[in-house]
């Protein structure tokens, strides 16, 4: 293992992107992700890359659209209100099947909300916040090291599937500093040749990158079917999660990102009290690791979903569990975060209710 250095999540994401060959960044300042454009404005020129402070999030995502059509690894980042603005461009990029990375360092909403950490953009991220039937690969890191690793992977998956990837973090994971091992980038998939890029039609037929499909009449139906087939393939191939002490668990906590860290602490507290609790932490939120939850639901008594939002993530957990066991909920939005004690309290009440039911 290499030497570890102390870095903030937001900075690590930038460095991982640079290591992975990202050479174009466009963004707009918004708290709590300001370290990202600041870091990139300094770092991009050092590697002959491009940094543009855009006039808006709309412009930023469309600059990324152009950079991706030019074949370069590219990214933008923002926080919740800014990500809403980017949805137009994300829909276009997904429709045009171009790769890019979008980072959402989530803050409280709706509206301007506040600048505290939140997970309330879950639906927007995993269900598609823009128009049309499209999917974005959504990654939810829980540590600074994982931000480093997943950011690198994100560029590979984006290129491999020709699809936007979103890194769904939050104000805490972006701002917290942890020791991280910086290792050189190595692709984790066989990267396909970029035979779609617009670089002038010298010696070949002109190419078109577009999302408008008027001809033939059912051309857009065919295009959508093609997209859905791709999404199915991604669902089959890409499903990442961490399982923690689930083997004998009577209660399994479902939580992602920073919430899962706190939940892990609660697992530890509950175990000390003799309650067998485990944790499933999805790392990919789309594709959702449904199998992990479906399997756990067969052996565990109950599932507790913990999220920093008012019941978004729980919908996917319930779909995966499909009624096989009860799914309880603990969560709030607006910058609220759970404590280990609060989760423990909920677990104890769930355990007590079960014990009573068994009598």
């Amino acid at each position, binding site marked *: 293992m290499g030497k570890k250095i*102390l870095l903030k999540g937001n900075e690590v994401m930038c460095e991982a992107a640079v290591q992975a060959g990202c050479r174009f960044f466009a963004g707009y300042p918004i708290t709590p992700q300001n370290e990202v454009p600041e870091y990139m404005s300094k770092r991009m020129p050092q590697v002959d890359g491009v940094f543009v402070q855009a006039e808006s999030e709309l412009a930023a995502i469309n600059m990324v659209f152009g950079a991706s059509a030019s074949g370069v690894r590219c990214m933008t980042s923002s926080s919740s209100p800014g990500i809403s603005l980017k949805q137009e461009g994300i829909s276009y990029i997904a429709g045009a099947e171009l790769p890019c990375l979008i980072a959402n360092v989530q803050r409280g909403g709706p509206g301007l909300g506040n600048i505290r950490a939140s997970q309330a953009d879950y639906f927007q991220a995993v269900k598609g916040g823009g128009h049309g039937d499209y999917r974005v690969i959504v990654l939810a890191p829980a540590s600074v090291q994982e931000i480093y690793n997943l950011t690198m992977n994100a560029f590979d998956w984006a290129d491999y599937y020709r699809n936007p990837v979103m890194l769904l973090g939050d104000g805490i994971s972006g701002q917290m*500093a942890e020791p991280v091992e910086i290792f050189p980038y190595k692709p984790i998939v066989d990267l396909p040749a970029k035979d779609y890029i617009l670089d002038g039609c010298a010696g070949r037929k002109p190419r078109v990158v577009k999302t408008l499909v008027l001809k033939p009449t059912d051309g857009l139906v065919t295009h959508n079917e093609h997209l859905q087939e791709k999404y199915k393939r991604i669902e089959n191939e890409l499903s990442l999660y961490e399982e923690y002490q689930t083997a004998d668990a009577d209660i399994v906590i479902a939580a992602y990102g920073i919430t899962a*860290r706190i939940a892990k602490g609660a697992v530890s507290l509950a175990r000390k009290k003799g309650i067998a609790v485990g944790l499933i932490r999805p790392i990919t939120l789309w594709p959702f690791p449904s199998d992990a939850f479906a399997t756990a639901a067969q052996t565990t008594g109950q599932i507790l979903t913990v999220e920093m939002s008012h019941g978004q993530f729980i919908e996917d957990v319930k779909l995966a569990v499909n009624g096989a066991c009860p799914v309880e909920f603990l969560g709030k939005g607006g910058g609220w*975060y759970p404590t*280990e*004690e609060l989760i423990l309290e909920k677990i104890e009440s769930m355990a007590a209710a079960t014990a009573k039911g068994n009598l």
Partner: protein
Amino acid sequence: MDRHETRIIIAGFGGQGIVLIGNVIARAAVIEEKNVVGMVSYGAEMRGGTANATVVISDGEIFNPFVAHPDMAIILNQPSLDRFEPQIGKDGLVLMNTSMIKRGPQRTDLKCIKVDATQIAQKVGNLRVANIVSVGAFIEHTNLLSMSSIEQAIKDLFSSKNPKLVEINLEALHTGAERSRCMQPVR
């Protein structure tokens, strides 16, 4: 799963170098190959009023990055002590900058280390090193990290910026340690 974990809060005025204290402690922990999570209050919360940073140091995996009930607190001004005293865990330790804190903790379970950090910093020659004076006292009275790791962290942080800053911060660190040495924790 027996692991030793210490949760620390550092608080004071914005401008007292709160973030730097967190940074120095967290870097020293990395040098000692411990796990660590550091966080600072950010954005609008950071402009005016109290600033705070938290550090969690562990020899195992750190789950919760938040510090709700710190084991140890480094407090550089009165409003911060008033704000954070109720949150400190039972039998916790408080290092307080007596230059700017006239009313000590009301709780009797807290161990208290007193250092006249701002005064000492003035004597060292720069008011701004009161934060590192506090770190010196803090390290002297805890078994958390070795003084040499802190020294290394200070060198790592400042040597690229200005070698003179290394010198004065090391002096502040050692003076803080010396000047608080005779002060036993009071119950």
